[in-house]
């Protein structure tokens, strides 16, 4: 089994217009910058981007927003210092925004990956973000019913990978990457070091079954 592909372009080639794409990363950590650049080059548009943030400065998701490739953003925190391209598109009403509490975002993606049809979370109960949602009270505690969040693709960033698609991560760069690998139908990993030998079974964080392709990209930003 060899899930390695040679180029970033080859890795993102299956992504079509209108696709929903999970993109790993939090702050500066664990963002697949190489794959995002390749996606921009590749040209797919009308994308739904699922990520914690909505980009900052002129790199990463901000580049997709600047390039007008994004129709909708699902995230927990679109406003960051320097999230000017998100703000520009949002103010001009050029993109749709769905704000999801961060833990609910992670759990909805996990539910998609785990075959769970919905779950009750106390997060957001009684707030604006629960408006219109099914709620219930159990033992005096309020819960909101949340649905799984699937995607067509996930773009991931990992530290080490092998031909079987197994991945491990560095420091705080795990964040959304492992859970997104499970929630997307086709997960693509940009990996700093790809070995031809398998990773040690105990050290694998994302089992290869969740990863469809692996491409080496040595740059750590």
């Amino acid at each position: 089994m060899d899930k390695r592909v040679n180029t970033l372009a080859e890795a993102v080639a299956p992504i079509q217009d209108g696709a929903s794409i999970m993109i790993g990363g939090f702050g500066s950590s664990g963002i697949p910058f190489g794959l995002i650049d390749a996606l921009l080059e590749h040209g797919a548009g009308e994308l739904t981007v699922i990520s914690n943030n909505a980009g900052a400065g002129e790199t990463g998701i901000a580049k997709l927003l600047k390039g007008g490739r994004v129709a909708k953003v699902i995230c927990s925190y679109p406003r960051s210092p320097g999230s000017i391209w998100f703000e520009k598109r949002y103010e001009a009403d050029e993109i749709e925004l769905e704000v999801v509490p961060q833990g609910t975002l992670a759990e909805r993606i996990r539910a998609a990956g785990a075959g769970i049809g919905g779950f009750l979370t106390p997060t957001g109960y009684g707030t604006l973000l629960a408006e219109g949602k099914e709620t219930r009270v159990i033992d005096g505690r309020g819960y909101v019913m949340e649905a799984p969040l699937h995607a067509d693709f996930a773009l991931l960033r990992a530290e080490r990978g092998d031909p079987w698609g197994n991945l491990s991560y560095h420091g705080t760069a795990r964040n959304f990457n492992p859970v997104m690998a499970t929630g997307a139908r086709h997960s693509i990993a940009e990996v700093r070091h790809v070995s031809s030998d398998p990773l040690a079974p105990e050290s694998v964080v994302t089992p290869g079954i969740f990863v469809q392709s692996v491409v080496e990209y040595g740059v750590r930003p």
Partner: protein
Amino acid sequence: MNRLSDSALAARVAFDIPDGAYVNLGIGKPTHVSAYVPEGREVIYHSENGILGVGPTPPEGEEDVEMIDASKRYITTAPGASFFEHSDSFAMMRGGHLDIAVLGAYQVAENGDLANWATLDQKFPPAVGGAMDLVVGVPKIFVMMQHTNRDGSPKLLRKCTYPLTGLGVVSRVYTDLAVLDVTSEGFRLVELTKGNSLTDVQAVTEATIHA
């Protein structure tokens, strides 16, 4: 009135964090609390982006963009640290495993309602991050803020006017003027910043402060 400086306020909050506590420090002012925890206490800091055991800022030149906290500041690991992914990190928060979270706030109501994620200003897109998960999951929510807004209007209210982050979640409020517990009867005075009177503090507080 006497007002605690930001550092004195951080030190006051830090004084209440016991040895062995698992603590999440919200972005902004709460991140400074760790610098003031009294000697001899080991506090384990959680950051929502997947680390338990946040250590001090690295020396200049040794920063790693893949070693950050939720405020996107560079960090190191403390002894006993571990890394994990986001759904596990929020399971930890939501599941009640942390002991204390310290958060900033726009408004706190006397029933413990917290508003700290959105104002009524429609100009900005909404952004919630992990605040709603923290407040439902962590048993002790400490709020750390200025007692009033810059224009002098109160932030400790009978009822919040901004969109809520969580219902009845705040345990204690630390302000530059006083420390207050949230109880079933409302705000109860724990202490006044040295030199302040309850009458003065009550005058800039919409909700009643019980002595």
